[in-house]
């Protein structure tokens, strides 16, 4: 048995929000007579933790404890529109909508508090559920008292609404792809290193260690963002070495219909994972946050494929890097890339120039 270890790295970027924008999210908030806060958002929580994140944003923006927030995303009769939980937009785009709704509600809350305290609203702030005069902290009224006053004294309902929308960047030059405005809400960045062990007799690749660094803008909840990065890591590992719907792609033969015929990563596949969170705040994100949940499975496959090269000297460029692909690559190891003039040409056998008809529209000329 011959085991070889190798390392590889990658660096990536990924946009937050729908490509070309045009994806609104809306939120609204009402304050109950006792000061407790109901947040209504249309964002589906698919496990990413958006219920928690948006509640945290609402709590801090209003200046009340997290425990005072109830969060309702349960139905379209009470919750306003959210384009959805995709495109890494639930924290940035939908979170911004909640932030704006909370800021709007806070403004109304301060107006009522201002009447009670006889202080201009702009001279008030809310800290830990109390409205306090800036510079004179002894002058204060609790948020529950403000809410009660709104309800029973002034006959008002304290609400806030907010919406976030970057207009659709529709104008894409069809020839050049140039756009006239940023086609994303933000961009985030990550780098990754992978260490693998390859058995050159069986072709089996084991990912031993992943180091990952993500610029998240701001970690609204560090544990939740770690969870996204770690979950993404194993999905990236699956992409790299385990999973495929069509084991004989492009053929559709032997497509498996059960867990027993599909290599989903299990706990025994878990490598060591080191997670480094960088916070370069985004100019427009809620509290500087960016969306990173999707890109979390992007950096591992190239880092792992490079580590396989480092270990055994062959490039496997079809995913996943199955034992079979490793053995087939090793059998052709001596062949190496084709050199023609200043060209170094890899993967002739996979290219359209080899597989497609010579009259095909799909051409990719290489060589001198």
């Amino acid at each position: 048995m011959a085991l070889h270890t190798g390392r590889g790295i990658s660096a990536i970027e990924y946009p937050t929000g729908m490509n070309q924008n045009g994806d609104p999210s809306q939120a609204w908030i009402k304050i109950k007579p006792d000061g407790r806060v109901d947040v209504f958002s249309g964002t589906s929580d698919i496990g990413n933790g958006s219920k928690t994140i948006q509640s945290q944003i609402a709590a801090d923006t209003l200046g009340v404890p997290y425990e005072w927030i109830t969060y309702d995303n349960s139905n379209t009769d009470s919750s306003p529109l959210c384009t959805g939980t995709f495109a890494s937009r639930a924290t940035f785009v939908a979170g911004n909508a909640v932030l704006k709704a909370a800021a709007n509600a806070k403004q109304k809350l301060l107006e009522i508090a201002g009447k009670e305290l006889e202080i201009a609203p702009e001279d008030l702030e809310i800290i830990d559920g109390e409205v306090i005069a800036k510079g004179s902290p002894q002058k204060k009224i609790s948020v529950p008292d403000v809410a009660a006053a709104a309800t029973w004294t002034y006959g008002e309902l304290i609400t806030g609404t907010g919406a976030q929308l970057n207009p659709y960047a529709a104008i894409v030059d069809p020839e050049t792809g140039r756009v006239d405005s940023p086609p994303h809400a933000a961009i985030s960045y990550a780098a990754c290193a992978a260490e693998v062990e390859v058995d050159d007799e069986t072709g089996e690749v084991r990912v031993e260690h992943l180091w990952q660094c993500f610029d998240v803008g701001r970690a609204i909840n560090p544990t939740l963002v770690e969870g996204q990065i770690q979950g993404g890591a194993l999905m990236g590992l699956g992409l790299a070495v385990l999973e495929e719907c069509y084991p004989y792609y492009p053929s559709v033969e032997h497509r498996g219909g059960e867990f027993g015929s599909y290599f989903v990563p299990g706990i025994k596949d878990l490598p060591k994972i080191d997670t480094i969170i960088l916070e370069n705040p985004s100019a427009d994100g809620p509290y500087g946050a960016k969306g990173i949940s999707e890109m979390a499975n992007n950096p591992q496959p190239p880092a792992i494929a490079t580590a396989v090269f480092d270990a055994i000297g062959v490039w496997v460029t079809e995913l996943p890097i199955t034992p079979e692909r490793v053995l087939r690559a090793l059998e052709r190891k001596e062949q190496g890339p084709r050199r023609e003039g200043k060209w170094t040409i890899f993967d002739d056998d996979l290219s359209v120039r080899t597989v497609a008809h010579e009259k095909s529209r799909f051409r990719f000329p290489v060589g001198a």
Partner: protein
Amino acid sequence: MKLTVNGVEHEVESHGLQPLLSVLREELGITSPKAGCQQGGCGACTVLVDGEPRRSCLIPAGALNGAAITTVEGIGTPEHLAPVQAAFHEHYGSQCGFCTPGFLLATHALIERSPGADRAQIDEALAGHACRCTGYVKILEAVEAAVGGAK
């Protein structure tokens, strides 16, 4: 047929070839075991059968007369979380939550059987449980905390 679920005895009418999963979910209305695959492949339907973790989608009702079944509803409540539930909550061992009941019961059984279980034993006990969200990192942290607490 008699079946004791979470300490309550039921007279069950489901057909003998119905899987325990459907007895629990459709006849008894106990919904924590999930129909994640109904192929025995994912572990989302795992319950304890006489204390042993088993895939409820694989056991025909007719084979169970008199058995004692435990589901997540039977190990703790929101007010009084079982140690394993508290550990999963504290360590964010759950993201979408769909696989969580199966993981909880497999872990609960592991702790009963092997208090102070090591990493290899944990990996073995949870090997057949699929989680697509967490990458298992925080699940493992939760299980190690629960195992440590039991030791």
